[in-house]
């Protein structure tokens, strides 16, 4: 028998060793594929994890960009040149995201990068994009509190997802008591901070708000679901606002179903559960639970129907679902193409300046516009989970909502705006009329 403690030390060392080794291997592979590229193409970087924890969500986005490039090339490409995708795999490893981004920009000389899912991966690549002056399109709903010159945020800011969802529950379901449940990292924590401030401004008392965090991949939800049940039996209508992310959702919903918490008693509104996530669950016990997004596959518009048809034909899978971050990539990609065609160049500086004001149709019948704060306008939909794993839209905002880079609910950010057109500043304080600059 071996001594135990040496095992553990050895375990941690060797893990690092293998990580570095695999990273090196992948680097080598990627540079091999990059070297073959011809000069008469425009290169588009795709920075999504194809292995590791986030592969479940990000692989689809890689496929989406490949699909969009394919479609664009069929139309003759951009500026008379074909687009060429350069795909790298940051393997759900946050520091590796920065390495891969640097490689895409310096080695492969891409004109633009579409990528990242988690906020921590975006934060990890930010310095690289600033230093090397390139463009990142980020397609996922996030916590806001950011506006960078080199990043275009095509996912929802909190005021385009979380706040309208809470408004819906207050108005339609008359919810008085709130459980804010999330995975323990930056997006849920910031979103819940914003929501807590917003609920309090609407007169909700502190004792009517329960906040709960769980680790990534949490799988034993018995205690928390029982707590929610208990919290919900205080005689006031209760709802759960879920920022639970990734894999942990499946056991969470299974436990809800098994413990008999029905949507008509305690509805759960989720910000990270879409068609893809539901693919792994039997949704019949979840009927009526809600999700807030800017896009649902079930929305019937000619643009959406065509997109779904083409997508399923491209992936050769008639059951392949579509989801919100995919739509964000569609909008972002089309905006970038329009901007490039407008300035007749792929030079990042020119394209960054051209992007604000560019409009591109979204798949739900509206036209989204890039704003000076590098966020876009989007409609907000509340959908109910149906028995077939799809959503039925029960409510939507009357028009498109402009994304706020800085939340109006938080003391630290309510005076800030992002404006890369007039003020050339991502965090301009409207009270003091000063740009805080990159220091903050």
């Amino acid at each position, binding site marked *: 028998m071996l001594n135990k403690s040496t095992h553990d030390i050895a375990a941690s060392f060797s893990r690092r060793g293998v990580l570095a080794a695999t990273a090196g291997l992948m680097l080598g592979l990627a540079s091999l594929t990059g070297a073959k590229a011809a000069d008469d193409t425009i290169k588009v970087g795709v920075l999504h994890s194809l292995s590791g*924890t986030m592969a479940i969500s990000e692989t689809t986005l890689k496929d989406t960009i490949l699909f969009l490039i394919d479609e664009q090339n069929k139309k003759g490409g951009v500026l008379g040149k074909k687009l060429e995708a350069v795909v790298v795999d940051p393997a759900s490893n946050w520091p590796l995201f920065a390495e891969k981004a640097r490689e895409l920009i310096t080695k492969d000389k891409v004109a633009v990068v579409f990528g990242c899912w988690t906020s921590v991966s975006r934060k990890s690549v930010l310095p690289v994009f600033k230093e090397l002056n390139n463009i990142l399109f980020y397609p996922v709903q996030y916590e806001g509190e950011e506006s960078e010159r080199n990043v275009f945020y095509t996912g929802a800011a909190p005021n385009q997802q979380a706040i309208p969802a809470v408004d819906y529950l207050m108005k339609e379901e008359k919810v008085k008591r709130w459980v804010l449940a999330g995975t323990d990292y930056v997006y849920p924590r910031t979103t819940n901070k914003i929501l807590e401030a917003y609920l309090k401004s609407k007169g909700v008392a502190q004792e009517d708000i329960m906040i709960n965090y769980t680790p990534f*991949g949490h799988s034993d939800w018995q205690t928390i679901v029982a707590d929610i049940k208990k919290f919900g*039996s205080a005689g006031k209508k209760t709802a759960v606002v879920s920022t639970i992310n990734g894999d942990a959702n499946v056991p969470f919903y299974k436990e809800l179903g098994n413990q008999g918490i029905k949507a*008509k008693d305690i509805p759960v509104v989720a910000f990270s559960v879409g068609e893809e996530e539901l693919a792994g669950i039997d949704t019949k016990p979840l009927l009526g639970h809600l999700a807030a997004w800017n896009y649902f596959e079930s929305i019937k518009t000619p643009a959406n129907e065509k997109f779904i048809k083409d997508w399923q034909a491209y992936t050769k899978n008639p059951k392949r679902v579509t989801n919100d971050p995919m739509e964000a990539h569609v909008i972002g990609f089309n905006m970038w193409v329009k901007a490039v065609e407008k300035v007749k160049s792929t030079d990042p500086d020119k394209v960054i300046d051209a992007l604000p004001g560019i409009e591109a149709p979204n798949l739900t019948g509206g036209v989204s516009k890039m704003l000076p704060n590098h966020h876009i306008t989007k409609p907000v939909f509340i959908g109910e989970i149906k028995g077939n794993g799809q959503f039925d839209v029960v409510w939507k905002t009357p028009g498109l909502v402009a994304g706020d880079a800085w939340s109006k609910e938080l003391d630290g950010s309510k005076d800030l705006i992002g404006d890369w057109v007039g003020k050339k500043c991502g965090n301009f304080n409207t009270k003091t009329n000063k740009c805080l600059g990159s220091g903050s």
Partner: protein
Amino acid sequence: MPAHLSARLCTFVLSLFLIAFALPAFAGPFEDAVAKFANDDYSETEEAIGVVASSGNKLAFPIISALQDGRLMADPESKKVYVTGADGKSIDAATGEPVASVPDSASAVRLNNRLRRSVDAAVGSLTLQSPDLGVRLQAAQSVFKSHEETALEAVDGALAKETNRSVKAALVDARAAILLFKSDATEVEKLEAVATLKARGDQEALALLTGMGDQPASVTKAAASAIGSIQSSLAVWSMVQNAWYGLSLGSVLLLAAIGLAITFGVMGVINMAHGEMVMIGAYTTFVVQEVIRTSYPGLFDYSLLIAVPLAFLVAGAIGVLIERSIIRFLYGRPLETLLATWGLSLVLQQAVRTMFGPTNREVGNPSWMSGAFELGQITITYNRLWILVFTLAVFAILLAMLRYTALGLEMRAVTQNRRMAASMGIATSRVDALTFGLGSGIAGIAGVALSQIDNVSPNLGQSYIIDSFMVVVFGGVGNLWGTLVGAFTLGIANKFLEPVAGAVLGKIAILVLIILFIQKRPRGLFALKGRAVEA
């Protein structure tokens, strides 16, 4: 006489006609209400539910129950509403007349959560006197939940006729809930209602009592004392509940760790690919269910029983293959073993990702593993209960195997003193392969059970590998009983910490406690003693 007869016949026919026409003629509001279903507007649908449910029309129940099941079809153009039956036949909802077919432009009337609640309340008050016992019980429970004044009459009527004890109790509770919220109920009635709810003593009673709003002083006082007594009894129950959750978490930990207790605990191989064996077991379950779904849908409830031996064979075979092709060259070199098995785990993950795709795969729960039952004031879910039973069974079989079979004897002999065993004529390398296969096979079985509560994704195994090592080390390497006690200790400690410290801090606290414990007792809870330790 014939004249007289025909006159009588005439009056009879006339009166028949009158009755036939009178119904629709007087049911104007009913027809209007039914037509509102076709407007696809939630508040109009809600109005319509109210009018239809209280209309007393014999079509009310078919309409409302069709609405509940998504069988109420409305045509937005003609404003006609149809009830489609399970047998494919349809009737016009306003008149009750059969129709040949529902037009294609009609779609099911949509509901949201608010409407589902009013539909439930309506169905409840309409089915209080149903001949089916289960339906009556459910009806009484949904009236209790909605406690609308309009249902009081129906509850009183049903109460007078009800003979079944549990339904009667549910009706009494429902009546109490209604009276508590009825503004013109007498003080005596309300005090009685509070007493009834106090006797019920569960969270729903607590919810009603805390949310009852303004009441006469005596009622408020009685309610306050009822709330106090319910809360203190619930506090005791929550301890029981934590203990149960702890057992359940412990059983999951044990199940995940039990295979590792063989490969790592008994053989001493640091097997980082152990989690992937669990994952392979879960994917085997998925494949089995997929085959059953497409070819033998009737067998679905047996899918897990079929998957258990298959998962054991698949994972076990892969285990033997790994042992023969990699691990046997690395015995006595823990660092290389660790690196090789970790690399192997990445290879297996990526292989599964390529074969089955990166997204989660749906593994369904058979009917006997879905839902929950109430034991006192705690909810016990069937899937957790079965997993606990299953884990203990696997543990017992494994223990018996090691103790009473020839292979078990050989395994113990080889792990305790390889050279001695070899000189006694045991083919040690064959035993090594079989032992590793056994550990992997058991991990595969664990995957079948874990597929019921967790994601079936390529990452499934990763989330269990750390916990598994923790359990085996904590319990004492090389001792199966230690693994059992270790798993349940960690499970229960975790579940008692979680409500106090939260899930994140709770987990950290457990890790810290284990580190401290290992400092004090490096060989775990149940250390092996004697010469085997030095081998």
